[in-house]
């Protein structure tokens, strides 16, 4: 082997090492963040944390039950509006999206995926909070729904497109009308994938803070009334992280651990749903 070939081989090996090193460096922060969350969060979590609402600053022993329940309610509200519209849009793109309108909707969905969530937040404030005269969980849910639709539309489209055409043809040949073919055969087959998309979208919006600052606002008390301000874990973390008390910082880490746990469970569930689909297919 000539010296030149050797040099080229050496460069290839070296660059492989550099690329692998960069990849490790990129994953490192995640490991650091998880380690800190576990280390600082786990020591603060006790029974009170889950069943009590916050106590006045300076006292100890409070919890974030109001924020945990609030996160659930606001995310559920967002799903109520976001899932039908998102999945419907995705079905449209997969079934009828070949033309100009399809292109436009696809493009808008991708562009909106990158729209800053705070901008959506102040729009929701203008439409739902200002006319009503007060902050509400519904406004927060609506803002999150707007963020959810584009994500869900694109994953649904992708999943529905994976359904083999022969399945559709078989249903049509048996005399099914198109709409029943689309819903009962095509969408049904893609269901696991659509569920995955929904879980990923929920994981994403569950941690959103910016669009909730001026809609759901936050609430120190336990509230399940959707027309009133409501607390979420993300808002709670923001308030506690910016506060001056050691106790608050402790609760912020604990809340972050719980929120991250939720996101993690949703992400793993999403992965698991598609994995079983691949295994079945």
């Amino acid at each position, binding site marked *: 082997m000539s010296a030149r070939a050797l040099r*080229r081989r050496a*460069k*290839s090996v070296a660059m*492989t090492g*550099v*690329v692998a090193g*960069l*990849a490790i*460096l*990129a*994953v490192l922060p*995640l490991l650091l*963040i998880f380690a*800190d969350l576990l280390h600082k969060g786990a020591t603060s979590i006790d029974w009170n944390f889950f069943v009590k609402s916050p106590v006045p600053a300076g006292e100890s022993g409070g919890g974030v039950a109001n924020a945990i329940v609030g996160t659930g309610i606001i995310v559920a509200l967002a799903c109520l509006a976001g899932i*039908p519209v998102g999945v*419907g849009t995705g079905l*449209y*793109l997969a079934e009828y999206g070949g033309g100009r*309108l399809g292109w436009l909707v696809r*493009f*808008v*969905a991708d*562009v*909106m995926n*990158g*729209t*800053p*969530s*705070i*901008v959506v937040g*102040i729009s929701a*404030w203008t439409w739902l909070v200002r006319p009503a005269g007060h902050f509400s969980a519904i406004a927060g849910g609506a803002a999150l729904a707007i963020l959810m*639709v584009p*994500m869900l*539309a*694109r994953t649904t489209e*992708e999943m529905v497109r994976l359904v083999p055409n022969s399945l559709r043809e078989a249903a049509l040949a048996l005399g099914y*009308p*198109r*709409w029943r073919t*689309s819903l009962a055969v095509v969408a049904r087959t893609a269901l696991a994938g659509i569920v995955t998309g929904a879980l990923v979208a929920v994981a*994403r919006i*569950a*941690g959103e*803070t910016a669009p909730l*600052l001026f809609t759901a606002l936050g609430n120190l008390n336990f509230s399940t009334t959707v027309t009133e301000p409501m607390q979420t874990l*993300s808002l709670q*973390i*923001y308030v506690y*992280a*910016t506060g001056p008390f050691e106790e608050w910082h402790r609760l*912020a*880490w604990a809340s*972050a651990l719980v*929120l*991250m746990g939720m*996101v*993690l469970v949703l*992400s793993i569930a999403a*992965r698991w749903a598609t994995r079983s689909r691949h295994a079945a297919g």
Partner: protein
Amino acid sequence: MVRRHTRNIGDPAYRWILTGLALLLPLLLLAVGSQLAISAAPALKKFGFGFLLSTTWDPVAEVYGAAPMIFGTIVSSLLGLIIAVPLALGVAIFLTEFAPRWLRQPVGFLVELLAAVPSVVYGLWGVFVLIPLLRTIAVPPLRALLGWTPFFKGVFYGNSMLAAGVILAIMIVPYIAAVSREVLQAVPATQREAALGLGATRWEAVWSAVLPYGRAGIIGAIMLGFGRALGETMAVTLVIGNRHDLGASLLAPAYTMAAAIANEFSEATTQMYLSALFAVGLVLFIITITINAMARLLVWRVARGAAVGSKAL
């Protein structure tokens, strides 16, 4: 004929319902844009083009100029990009070209998780872990090495442009990596095989055959990351220091458009103050929409038809 017509009413109905749902999305984008424009109109009318150039932001005197925030938004995002791009491309190239098969899934999943960490959790980590780390590990050597440049002058209090740039870098790595990875996967295997067949080493094949083929898509991926960084709110608000200053030093506190809205929107007691914040939102909206649209077109050009990046985005 009549019977057939009644029996088939389901099909057109189905189509119209789906079309109606799909139309909501473009209408929503239009609604957000025009609402911002309407709410921003009073401030834009009063300050005109100077709104973008003036550095005075004085709610007491009712004078508003967004230059420091626009500057801070762009600089912090560029700083994040400079740090994130090599790391993200490293991940993408490693996963598509070099990683053993058993390693691809777990590393890919880890990177996806990085994209799923909520912004406010990054912010929390930034305040209590990253900033102390920067203070003890990163800033002293940076100052020793580059202290003579205007970029590393002054006192380092912690909350700073530098902290914002680093946290943004960590946050956008997964986006750029995920989209670049899909772009690289869309490069036909024949590109690679032809280069290897001509006697190229593996790195030469990647460098001279795979990367050039995916160049437009990778640029698109980088722009998507840039768009993300520009609009990122919570993490930046927590670490950037939130000061209406325009300076070269990365160690000094700064401000971004998104952070200003998050901080000041609920304090905006006068109509003009509120309108000025909407104007900031409008500028942010226009910048991110433009960058995202260009990025999408670039990515689509490479991986046409595939829902590129949708898993991570």
